């Protein structure tokens, strides 16, 4: 299977949130064009829901979906590369949840967003680091496959092209942090560690080394670890991230 880990997550503010990954074995040249398709039955007929989603691995419906509660929908992802066309497995709209659980999960997210938008949160953008997709042809070592330039103008040290996909607009709540400049423990000039705890809803799912941009201040953060503070049958509803502020000389300030 070329398209893997296809998930449909609840999202309060808009329609369904689709995420997927691509097998590491796929080496077709880019761009990779994805399309979310829906059908009333598992075998079709399939109609496109989204436009072309190029080199991205998530799609959020732009409006909340209003359908008859008894209607049944099926979704799949279509990938068109320069060489071939691939399809994901078919998924039901509520993913691993039934309808009631899906609605409960969505309501928990609604309350989280309400708290953030009315009181404690800030709006920012999330950029998901590429862990699959076409490899950078500029800075990778041809034999060992290691990335030789952390500020490569093509992949920005991620080894993939594009380096990040997004942005996904989300609400965050940042904790306070102690900032101090200190000598680097390894003897190389100074460091200014600033670590924050960030709370956000479960969509899109975040992983280590994803990047957060605080739209207000313009600061960039690297995600260090992720803890799911609330789950429903292993579907993440609320995520708590530990993030480190990136230094101003970091490649994140050039790519995002």
């Amino acid at each position, binding site marked *: 299977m070329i398209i893997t880990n296809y998930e449909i997550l609840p999202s309060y503010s808009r329609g369904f949130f689709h995420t997927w990954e691509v097998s590491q074995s796929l080496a077709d040249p880019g761009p990779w064009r994805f399309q979310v398709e829906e059908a009333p039955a598992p075998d079709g007929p399939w109609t496109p829901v989204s436009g072309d989603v190029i080199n991205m691995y998530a799609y959020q419906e732009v409006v909340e979906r209003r359908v008859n509660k008894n209607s049944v929908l099926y979704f799949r992802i279509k990938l068109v590369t320069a060489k071939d066309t691939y399809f994901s497995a078919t998924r039901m709209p509520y993913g691993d949840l039934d309808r009631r659980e899906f609605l409960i999960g969505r309501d928990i997210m609604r309350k989280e967003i309400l708290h953030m938008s009315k009181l404690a949160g800030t709006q920012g953008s999330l950029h998901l680091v590429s862990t699959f997709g076409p490899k950078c042809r500029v800075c990778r070592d041809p034999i060992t496959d290691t*990335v030789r330039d*952390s500020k490569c103008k093509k992949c920005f040290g991620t080894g993939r092209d594009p380096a990040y996909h997004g942005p996904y607009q989300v609400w965050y709540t940042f904790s306070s942090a102690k900032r101090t*400049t200190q000598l680097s423990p390894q003897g*190389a000039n100074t*460091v200014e560690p600033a670590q924050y705890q960030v709370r956000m809803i479960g969509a899109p799912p975040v992983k280590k080394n994803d990047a957060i941009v605080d739209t207000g201040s313009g600061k960039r953060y690297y995600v260090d670890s992720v803890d799911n503070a609330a789950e429903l049958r292993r579907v993440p509803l609320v995520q708590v991230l530990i993030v480190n502020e990136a230094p101003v*000389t970091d490649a994140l300030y050039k790519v995002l």
Partner: protein
Amino acid sequence: MSNLPHPVEVNEIMPEPSVGGVDLLPHVRKLPRVLYGIFVEVIRQYYMNFEGHPMGTPVKVWDKDPAKTEIWIDTEHRWVDDHPEFRPAIYVALSAIPYESLTGRKDGALDYDLKDSTEYFSRSGSGTVSFVHIGGTCGEAVALADSTMDYLDAFGKVIRDDFCFTSFNLTNRVPLQQMPKESKERYGSIVTCSYQLQDKWSLKQEAQLLKIVTFRALQQLSASGIV
């Protein structure tokens, strides 16, 4: 024909210890402050030159303007307020420098000129200098250190001669190690060179100059005394 050696006039290349207010290196004792300066300058000069890099290494050009430089090159434990955590970076670390005298005496005394009442001293020291390369990816740290190692190994003799070391040569390489975490993971690759240096100095003492005692043939000490 006289058997006296023909007097050879020896002129120092740089007879003055300074030019334009800048101390010349051969006349400066190689204190750690000077050693840090030598090695930082050596590595900065290499990374300043875009064309000096071997093919295949990431081209990181050092510039004295912190806003333009692509790599930070400095001494260890350097406090930098305005550009914290600049990576990739190379920093120069010195090991301890044990000293010993050339003659085996603990005070380093080498010679004493009775005529000028001047005492000469000399010490030799040896140590290692490590060029620690810190990269944002493991491949970057290794590639930078490969480039530095090529340079230091190829030009070790030139560095030895230009900076008046007794010896300067590549001794060790740590290919890759994980460094303490910063805003994200860091990787290190270390090139180590060993060097030997020799310092010499003289001390002119405040003492009355000794008289030269000469004896002429057929003179008797008791009859004519000391001339």
